[in-house]
């Protein structure tokens, strides 16, 4: 087709968009296929094929519960974090709207949190979005100030998918625990946090938590919603009453078994999922070798209490982020400009960075590098080499020097 010869023809690609999605683990792919072929019965069916499927489903629920450190009765399988976040926000509003009308979210949430919240706002709920500091982190005191006696839900993502900032969930949790009963329901979107932080859902006092399997090398279209046993929220989907009535629809057993296996594999390899070295090394090289480079969100050297290990957001001033993404892909390196689900829509791309109060030129030139398990250090070296070359040649064009 083209005689234009590009790097991706000869060198294996480097995938640095793990916060958008990860490549499923080869054993997960096998597990999904095996479940599809062998356990095709409907877990609700009365015959032995149904019983076999149900047994496998409940086994998966126990494995998942063990990894999350929660009671299996609180584990609900669904289609992923978007569904989980919608279920929690809409469900809490419907079930506890009589108690109050206040919902508090952070200003750096994923659209699957703030869009349902906006929709409730049109129905008359009060939505308070807590502004973060310039690194994207919430001040627990500010959260406390936003909560009043009519607050029924507080929703704060443990890790921002755009910058990797880690929120002070422990502090927020202890503020909530100090409130008189009935306390607001405490929810956290763990989509970017699962496997990355040593977090314990129960000791954090979370009432609800949401997880997507595809962020941890599991299958697409599968996820986990945790709801503390004893807490009842109104379902989004009604029907056959599966998942204890909270999520009707025939269970996606292949996806569920794939999820359980992805968590097993994550646990075996947890050091590599949690290592801060790649982030720190990459950030150090970028800042020292490429002029006019700014890290957005937690600094490269930030510890695990402030930064997730797998996301680094950087602005190369003067170059539109999208241009650099295309230039990098031409050299076989895949990065992103923001949350992948909304990168195509300019108005929404930089919700998080805008709420952090960053300047426009910094937002326009922002790139997000992210990964699943820690990549080898050579990947950082090759990325930095390509970026040195590309930033200087592109800046000659875009800024004239």
């Amino acid at each position, binding site marked *: 087709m083209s005689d*234009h010869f590009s790097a991706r023809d000869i060198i294996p690609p480097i995938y640095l968009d793990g916060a958008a999605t990860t490549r499923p683990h080869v054993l997960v792919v096998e597990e999904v296929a095996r479940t599809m072929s062998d356990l095709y019965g409907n877990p609700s069916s009365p015959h032995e094929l149904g019983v076999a499927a149900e047994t496998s489903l409940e086994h998966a629920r126990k494995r998942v519960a063990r990894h999350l450190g929660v009671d299996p009765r609180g584990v609900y399988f669904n289609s992923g974090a978007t569904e989980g976040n919608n279920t929690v926000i809409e469900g809490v509003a419907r079930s506890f709207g009589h108690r109050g009308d206040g919902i508090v979210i952070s200003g750096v949430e994923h659209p699957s949190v703030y869009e349902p919240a906006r929709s409730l706002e049109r129905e008359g709920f009060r939505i308070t979005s807590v502004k973060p500091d310039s690194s994207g982190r919430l001040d627990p005191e500010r959260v406390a100030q936003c909560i009043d006696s009519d607050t029924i839900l507080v929703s704060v993502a443990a890790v921002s998918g755009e910058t990797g900032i880690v929120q002070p969930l422990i502090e927020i949790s202890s503020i909530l625990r100090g409130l008189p009963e009935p306390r607001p329901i405490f929810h956290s979107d763990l989509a970017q946090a699962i496997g990355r932080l040593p977090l314990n859902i129960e000791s954090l006092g979370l009432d609800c938590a949401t997880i997507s399997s595809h962020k941890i090398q599991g299958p697409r279209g599968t996820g986990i919603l945790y709801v503390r046993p004893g807490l009842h929220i109104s379902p989004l989907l009604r029907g056959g009453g599966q998942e204890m009535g909270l999520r009707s629809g025939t269970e996606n057993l292949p996806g569920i078994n794939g999820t359980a296996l992805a968590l097993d594999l994550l646990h075996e390899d947890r050091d590599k999922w949690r290592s801060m070295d790649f982030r720190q090394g990459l950030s150090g090289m970028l800042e020292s070798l490429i002029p006019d480079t700014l890290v957005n969100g937690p600094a490269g050297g930030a510890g695990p209490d402030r930064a997730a290990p797998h996301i680094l957001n950087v602005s190369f001033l003067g170059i*539109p982020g999208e241009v650099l993404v295309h*230039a990098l892909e*031409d050299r076989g390196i895949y990065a992103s400009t923001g949350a992948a689900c909304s990168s195509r829509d300019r108005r929404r791309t930089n919700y998080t960075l805008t709420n952090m109060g960053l300047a426009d030129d910094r937002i326009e030139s922002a790139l997000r590098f992210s990964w699943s398990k820690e990549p080898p250090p050579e990947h950082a070296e090759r990325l930095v080499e390509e970026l040195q070359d590309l930033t200087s040649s592109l800046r000659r064009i*875009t800024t*004239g020097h």
Partner: protein
Amino acid sequence: MIHPGEETILVRYGEIGLKGKNRALFENRLMNNLGAAAPRGSVARIHRRQGRLYVDLLPDADSEDAIAHMSRVFGVVSLSPALVTPLEDAAMERAAISAAREAVASLETSAAISPSFKVEARRANKGYAKTSPEINTWLGGVILDAVSGLSVDVHEPDIRIVVEIRSDAAYVLGRTIRGPGGLPVGSAGRGLALMSGGIDSPVAAWQLMKRGLSVEAIHFHTPPFTGPRARRKVEELGSILAPWGIGFTLHMCHFTEAATAIRENCPRRLHLTIMRRIMLRQASALAQSRGIPVLLTGDSLGQVASQTLENLVATDDAATIPVLRPLIGLDKEEIMQRSREIGSYETSILPHEDCCSVFVPSDPQTTPSIEKVRSAESALPDFLLGDAPPRVDTLVFDQSGTRTT
């Protein structure tokens, strides 16, 4: 010859009839285009008879599908499916009833409440026993009995059931489907369209396809300043135009070097004008290398800064062959409406930009003088000012819109 019991489609065409001795050429082009547009394996043969074309379908063909495809062929004024029956009373009665039912089903809802009809017999076979008025009365009565809710109106009927008596068979027609009109693609020669990813340029190409031009397109892209989605969008537009153009050829031209050179060497406010001059120059060279005599663009006078009269004059100055601008006098709203009818609108409004803001000044010169532009342009490297055709990737779509190369 088609056999009784099979189906043929009568195709009426308009302006072709006016073209004097070129008429056969036009008719042949239309027959070719109809054959190409019809689904594979649906057409037995296409023939001409008394100023009409007949498309005989194969026994297993899906006639609705064939009609849907052929009703988008330029040059077609209207189409009517015809049942071919033996010259036997029972068979002709069945055909008349079925044609009437189909015609009722296809009526607009306003007329469908109590539609009127008439039968029009045409007796080409003078040996046939019944006269035309006898046939009208006989089959009119049959239809009236069999299809409820119909009434007869011989002056302004909603439905005309035409019965043509030939030597070997009767042709019974009830329903008429409008075609797009115009002239068959290819009958007016060839043109090369400059195609962005926007709303206007696909409409410009369509508009001249309708006047018989066989249109190819050139698209200028500037990776990495434009991305793979912008490229995909232009490919999709090519695929949407392909059924109208009886296939479509799209040339993708890598323009980053040119855009960069303009940015580095020319005054900022003239970037847009000069960029468009280089595009016209490269398109002229490509067209000439392919034996194409004209260019076409989607310009509409005054719509944006680059479409002021002065800018159009200053850009045309760089073209070495004539530039047709079929949308020059249309409002944006009219162009958008046409784009929706063609089916390109939804793709055109996708947000992937085909030209990066890096290369477009925020305050482009709207009244440049040709002399100034020429002199500013002379600072560019020779390869942008010469007449060598640019290097392109060429994509070909067949008439179904499928990419073949």
